[in-house]
């Protein structure tokens, strides 16, 4: 098992509502503070504006989509252009639909209440992140076990002897 496994966290960063600001800041918290060495992200619009490398993101990394509202743009765009996500959630399930769909907010005017929302969403990201990581390791262990069963000769091949 590689120690270098990284999990992709893709936020919508929606500009049209508060949920987008919260999804963005909570994702940044993962990158900056919570799991900086194991978290990667991508700018969502790069799936269309970028190249094959960008579109391969969800194939390269188990990915969690974090959306600001129930349009689920991050999840749907990732799955449309890149690959199936491992998990996804909408921040309105945590901070409430009314708050999530309220006016967008500049980080210049963040209040303690907003910061609490960010912390709450970041906590949820961390929980789901750890579940994805755990599943990844379980699957990797299973694959190793299965390849071990197929190869009895001890050389690591799959001749079945």
């Amino acid at each position: 098992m590689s120690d270098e496994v990284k999990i992709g966290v893709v936020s919508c960063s929606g500009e049209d509502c508060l949920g987008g600001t919260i999804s963005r800041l909570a994702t940044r918290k993962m990158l900056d503070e919570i799991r900086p060495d194991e978290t990667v992200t991508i700018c969502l619009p790069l799936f269309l504006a970028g190249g094959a490398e960008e579109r391969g993101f969800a194939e390269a990394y188990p990915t969690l989509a974090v959306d600001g509202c129930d349009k689920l743009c991050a999840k749907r765009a990732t799955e449309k252009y890149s690959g199936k996500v491992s998990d996804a959630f909408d921040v309105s399930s945590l901070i409430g639909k009314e708050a999530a769909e309220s006016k967008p907010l500049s980080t210049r005017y963040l209040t303690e209440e907003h910061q609490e929302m960010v912390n709450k969403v970041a906590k949820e990201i961390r929980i789901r992140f750890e579940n994805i990581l755990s599943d990844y390791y379980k699957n990797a262990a299973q694959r190793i076990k299965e390849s071990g069963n197929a190869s009895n000769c001890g050389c690591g091949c799959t001749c079945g002897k």
Partner: protein
Amino acid sequence: MSKKVKVIPCSGMGKVHGLVAREAALKVVSELCPADAETVCLAYIVTGDDEAKEKIEGAPCLTLDGCPKMCAAKNVELAGGIVKKGYRVVDIFKGHRGVKPGNATALTEEGWLLVDELADKVKENVLELGKEG
């Protein structure tokens, strides 16, 4: 469709440039020209949903991109928006060598000054487009 000018930033996640673009766009639509400009979530445009396309198809748009990949401008064009001008945050930075603007999470005072400078430029353009009707 609303007649307001659409101001659409990339909101790039990896570098401070994306945050400067995002904050400048929010300042224009929320504070400087709320009657003449509005934004549309770029992520929604990226989905290619018909409803998202309807919001910008044929509409005058100003895009604010953090990096030369120009994600906002490209995605808006693909969705049928008319990019009247595509701003690049890297160009704003060129006039302020050595500036320490912060990072993709939070801006410093210097970073906010860059936001204000870009927002003022965009505001002028919004008002000009408004006169064109």
